[in-house]
C-alpha cells in the first residue's frame, strides 16, 4: 500500500463516515449547538454585568469584576471545566439529577463571561464621552443614559468580537466530554471520538471536524456583514447636497439679521 492509500483510509474512509453520520447529526450536532448557545447566552448576560461592574465608579464593584476576569481568563479551560464539573457534581445532582450537562454549560459560560466582559467593557468605553455628556445635559440619569444610549452603541461596536467568542465557545464545548456524558448527551467531538475508537479509524473524527468547520467558517464571514450593517444601521443613499443650498433652510423671519430689534445699538 502506498502512502496515499494509507492516508486516505485513515482519514477519509467514506463508509465509516457515513455510518456515524446519523448519530453525528441527531446527537452530536444538536448537543453541540445546545451547549454552545446556552453557554453563550449565560456568558453574554454575565459578561455584560461584569462589564458594567468594571466601569462602575465604585471600587467595590470594579475589584471583584477584575479578580473574576483575571481568574477565569487566566486558567486553562480544561482545568476550569474539570474543577467545576467534578467539584460541584453533588450540588448539580440535587438540582438536575445525574447529568453533567448543566454543569458543563455552567463552566463554559463562566469562562466565556470573563472574555465577554472584557469585550463589552472595551466597547462601552469606546463610545465617545460626548454621548454621555449629551444625555446628562438632557437630564438623564447615569443609568438611563447607559441603558438607552451608551450601551447599545458599545455593543454594536463589538459584535464581531462577540461572534468570535461564540466560535471559541463552540470549540471549547468539546471539552465537556471530560465530565462523562451519557450516550444521548454526547456532542460532536465525543460522537466522533467514540466511533473512531470503535472502528480504529480516524475518519469519524474527521467528520466531526468537518461539522465544526461548517458551523464556524460561515460565522466568521457573517461577522463582517453584521459588522457593517449594525455599525451604521440602515443607511439611506442621498445625493450630496451643496452647502449653499442648505443656507436657505434657515431663513430669518422677514429678511435678514438687519431687522433684528437688538441690532442698531439699542443695547441696555
Amino acid at each position: 500500500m502506498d502512502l496515499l492509500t494509507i492516508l486516505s483510509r485513515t482519514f477519509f474512509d467514506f463508509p465509516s463516515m457515513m455510518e456515524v453520520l446519523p448519530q453525528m447529526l441527531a446527537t452530536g450536532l444538536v448537543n453541540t449547538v445546545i451547549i454552545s448557545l446556552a453557554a453563550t447566552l449565560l456568558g453574554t448576560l454575565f459578561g455584560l454585568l461584569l462589564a458594567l461592574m468594571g466601569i462602575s465608579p465604585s471600587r467595590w464593584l470594579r475589584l471583584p469584576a477584575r479578580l473574576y476576569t483575571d481568574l477565569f481568563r487566566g486558567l486553562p479551560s480544561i482545568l476550569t471545566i474539570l474543577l467545576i464539573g467534578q467539584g460541584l457534581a453533588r450540588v448539580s445532582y440535587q438540582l438536575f439529577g445525574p447529568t453533567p450537562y448543566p454543569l458543563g454549560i455552567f463552566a463554559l459560560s463562566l469562562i466565556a463571561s470573563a472574555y465577554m466582559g472584557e469585550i463589552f467593557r472595551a466597547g462601552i468605553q469606546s463610545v465617545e464621552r460626548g454621548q454621555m455628556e449629551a444625555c446628562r445635559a438632557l437630564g438623564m440619569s447615569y443609568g438611563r443614559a447607559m441603558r438607552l444610549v451608551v450601551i447599545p452603541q458599545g455593543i454594536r461596536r463589538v459584535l464581531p468580537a462577540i461572534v468570535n467568542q461564540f466560535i471559541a465557545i463552540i470549540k471549547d464545548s468539546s471539552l465537556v466530554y471530560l465530565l462523562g456524558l451519557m450516550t444521548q448527551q454526547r456532542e460532536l467531538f465525543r460522537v466522533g471520538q467514540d466511533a473512531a475508537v470503535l472502528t480504529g479509524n480516524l475518519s469519524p473524527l474527521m467528520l466531526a471536524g468537518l461539522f465544526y468547520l461548517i458551523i464556524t467558517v460561515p460565522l466568521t464571514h457573517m461577522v463582517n456583514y453584521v459588522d457593517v450593517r449594525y455599525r451604521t444601521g440602515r443607511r439611506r443613499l442621498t445625493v450630496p447636497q451643496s452647502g449653499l443650498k442648505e443656507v436657505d433652510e434657515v431663513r430669518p423671519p422677514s429678511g435678514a439679521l438687519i431687522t433684528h430689534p437688538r441690532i442698531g445699538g439699542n443695547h441696555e
Partner: protein
Amino acid sequence: MNNLSSTTDATWHGASLELRELTLAYGPIEVLRKVSLRVAPGSTTCIIGPSGSGKSTLLRGINRLHEPQSGDVLLADRSVLHDKPDTLRLRIGMVFQHFNLFPDHSALENVALAPWRVKGLPKAQAMAIARQRLEEVGLGQRADHRPRDLSGGQQQRVAIARALAMDPEVMLFDEATSALDPELVKGVLTLMADLCRRGMTMVVVTHEMSFARKVADQVVFMDEGEIVEAGPPGAIFDAPQSPRLQRFLSEVL
C-alpha cells in the same frame, strides 16, 4: 421650503441666571476663580476669550457637568446648587461644539428621546413635539435621516432642536459653530439670533465676534479663569479697557 417665518410665533420664557463667586477646579488646578455674572431673563450673553480661559468650564459649571467647588448658581432668582443635577439640567439646554447627536437614532428620534424617556411624555406626543422643533430649525424634511447623513450645520440644528424640545429656561452654547464649514455657520447663527429674539435666555461661548457684536446684550471677556471685562458689545469691542482684552481683540479681529 420650510423656513422659519411660518413658525416663529412660539415664544420662549427665558429665566434669569446668576453666578455668584463660582469657583471650579480640576483636581488641584483652579479653572474658574470666583466668577460672578448676571444674565437677565430673555437676554443673550456672549463669552469670549482665549483658549484655556475657562469659557467652556463656566458653561459646565452652570449645568454641573462639572461640580463647582464653591459659589452659587441662581436660576430664576433661586439657588439651584443644591438641587439634584438631573432636575436642574431639565431646565437648562446645552449645545456642544461637536453636536453629540446619537448616531443610531434618526434626527426625529434624537429630538424625541428626552421628552419621551426623561420627561415621560407619551411617545406620540414626544414625536409630535420633536417634529415641530425640527420644522422650526428648517429640518422637517430630514426628520428620518441619521446624523451621519446630515451636514455639520444640519446636525447642529438638530442638536439645538433636541435641547429646545425639553422647553428649557436657559440655553448654553459651547462653541456651537466652531466645527462647521464656513458656509454652514450662518444657518446656525441665524437660528441662535432668532432664539434670542424670541425670548430665550442664552449664554453663548463663541469665537464669532460679529455675532457677539450684533446679537449679544452683554459680552463677557474671560482669561485665566476670571471675568476680566464685561459690558454691552459696543463698550467691549469699540472701547476695551483692560490691556488683556485689547491684546485679545487685536489678535482675533
